[in-house]
């Protein structure tokens, strides 16, 4: 706990660098990642991340020092070349994009590893710490690094701010952007460049191996909480920054721990929790909505059946129907039927008698409405879409549960309150 206060108070300048650095780096990659995710190019980030390794090594071999400025330039060059190559291979051969991504990623990374091992055996003392770029070591961020990386992060954020409208458009609808005269290719090139920049800023804290996660995961998590692009960007940046902070803290209390994997672990847990629990889009919410709808369908089908049984028995709607009467007409699953009947009694649509179940007034009018919607829809399909009468039942079975009172009114008016459906059954109106 004492550690935590010491850490959060930012009194120690080293901690200040590490904290500010991690937050800034994680947030800026999350912002760019939002656009690449929406463009469905998430994995391209993975390719860039791996491809900066040979650039870093080459810069070191050429200059012989571990100056962040040179290393960033090297990383930028090879990262950018890798994207151009992926594009070129996909355009000029039958190789698909995913194969091209995997190919460039692994070859570039292999070359990087070869260079790194050669450097490590060369005996140059300055090389120690170069391997921190693999898995990230936020704790090794010093003032000079922070200056370079924050400058890049700042450029990146300003670029996104200035070109926000343009990026939003090419992320959602490239063809439209083209048609209204946007320089789409140039903008995509800028976005590509920003992606490479984002990767380059993140490598010190997160490392090349897992950098892709910082582009993909915060944006994927944010996507589950909102449909608004601005909110999504701020949320992604916030989540990225939070995991950056926690990752930096962990590498502060346990220096043996690589920072990158911890940052990725935290943002992944946030993302996976979002996948399950987010309102509207989460797995749990979807499952509950689905269950609710299934129950509603079952109950409405039972009421509809009661109404139809009444119609067939000379409009004696308030006679008792046994479970047998019901299943003879429509094969419900017995356990589901029992549950539905009990629920309907609780809601006051049915009442239990000694030998079975009977409509209440409210139940009858609801059953009648569903039957009416079913038949109106069948008629609408045959009249307006010219579908054969023997093909309309299935569709009506689904739509009858969805039609709102407003739509119901428009259907009635459009069809001018017809009396018969295509199968010559009476359409029952409420009087």
């Amino acid at each position, binding site marked *: 706990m004492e550690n935590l206060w010491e850490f959060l108070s930012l009194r120690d300048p080293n901690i200040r660098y590490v904290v500010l650095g991690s937050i800034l780096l994680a947030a800026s990659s999350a912002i760019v990642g939002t656009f690449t995710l929406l463009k469905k190019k998430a994995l391209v980030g993975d390719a860039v991340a791996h491809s900066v390794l040979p650039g870093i090594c080459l810069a070191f071999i050429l200059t012989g020092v571990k100056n962040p400025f040179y290393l960033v330039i090297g990383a930028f060059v090879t990262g950018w070349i890798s994207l151009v190559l992926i594009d070129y291979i996909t355009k000029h051969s039958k190789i698909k994009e995913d194969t091209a*991504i995997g190919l460039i990623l*692994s*070859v570039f990374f292999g070359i990087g*590893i070869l260079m790194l091992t050669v450097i490590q055996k060369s005996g140059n003392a300055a090389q120690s710490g170069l391997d921190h770029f693999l898995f990230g070591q936020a704790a090794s961020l010093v003032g000079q690094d922070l200056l370079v990386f924050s400058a890049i992060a700042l450029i990146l954020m300003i670029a996104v701010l200035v070109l926000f409208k343009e990026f939003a458009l090419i992320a959602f609808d490239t063809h439209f952007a083209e048609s209204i005269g946007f320089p789409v290719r140039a903008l995509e090139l800028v976005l590509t460049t920003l992606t490479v920049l984002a990767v380059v800023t993140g490598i010190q804290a997160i490392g090349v191996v897992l950098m892709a996660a910082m582009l993909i995961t915060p944006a994927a998590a944010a*996507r589950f909480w909102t449909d608004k692009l601005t909110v999504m960007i701020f949320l992604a940046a916030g989540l990225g920054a939070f995991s950056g902070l926690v990752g930096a803290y962990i590498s502060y209390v346990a220096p043996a721990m690589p920072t990158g994997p911890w940052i990725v672990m935290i943002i992944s847990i946030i*993302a*996976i929790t979002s996948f399950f629990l987010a309102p509207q889009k989460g797995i749990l919410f979807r499952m509950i909505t689905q269950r609710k709808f299934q129950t509603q369908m079952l109950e409405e089908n039972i009421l509809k059946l009661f109404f139809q049984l009444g119609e067939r028995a000379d409009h004696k709607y308030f006679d008792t129907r046994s479970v047998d009467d019901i299943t003879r007409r429509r094969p419900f699953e017995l356990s589901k039927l029992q549950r539905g009947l009990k629920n309907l009694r609780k809601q006051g649509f049915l009442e239990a008698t000694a030998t079975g179940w009977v409509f209440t007034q409210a139940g009858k009018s609801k059953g009648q409405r569903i039957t009416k919607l079913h038949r109106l829809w069948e008629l609408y399909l045959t009249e307006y879409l010219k579908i054969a009468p023997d093909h309309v039942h299935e569709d009506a079975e689904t739509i009858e549960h969805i039609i709102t009172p407003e739509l119901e009114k428009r259907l009635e008016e459009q069809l001018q309150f017809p009396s018969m459906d295509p199968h010559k059954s009476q359409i029952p109106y409420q009087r």
Partner: protein
Amino acid sequence: MSAEAFWIIAAGALVAIPCGLLGCYLILRKMAMVGDAISHAVLPGIVIAFFVSGTREPISMLIGAGILGILTTFLIEFFHTKARLQTDASIGVTFTWLFAMGIILISLFAGQVDLDQECVLYGEIAYVPIDLWITSNGTIMGPRVMYIMGAVFVLVLLFILFGYKELFLTTFDPKFAAASGISVALWHYLLMGAVSFTTVGAFESVGAILVVALLIVPPATAYLLTENFKKMLLITAGLGVVISIVGYYIAAGLDGSVAGAMALVAGILFALAFLFSPQEGVVFKHKKHTLTLDQES
């Protein structure tokens, strides 16, 4: 050729061939990145198996990684269908998460398991000749990795030989395969299982990331050289051997990682095929193009 060079080259080829053969199916199914994801995501399985069994005993490693491989495929599918997450994001989130977990586990168990981050990245193929299998009565049976990779090699070969028709049909025409009673899902998971096993076998020699170079690059190269699937498999296997031999000598010359050099050679071979392949090569395409233009004018 020294005995040491022989063992390293042989181990490299034994890794490269089964990887490449399975890779042929992956790239044709547009699942190259799923292969990449699996090769990363088996890591926590391997580490846990290491920790539980305490040794590099291959059976528990294969089980651990096999479970993780199938789990990865399942999670990618699950997030995509149940949470409607777009496929590329689903792949990206899943494998980076599992890989991060693997690295964290390695750091946690550091000292308790004989594994380090470098091994994960580029393997220890250079140690193949000295990592011997010695039986309890002291007989030296030769390099241990050769047995593991030999077994994986034979299993992958048998898998492709006996499942050739099913794999072929589910790859090229899944609808027809389903109509003729072949379970597309079953063969999908069998293939993913085979990829996971091969990745584990390859893990010790070339590391979790460079496996991808052997899974994707040789098949992509062969794909540019032929339109016949059987030939593509044969060319891929041949490329695996070439990559292993040339890779070893480059690494020996530069005193660097053999696995890295193998990826470099794979990349060079692809570049050659991309430029000079008789049918697909960019250079010849360009020539053909200018020729037809000349005739027109």
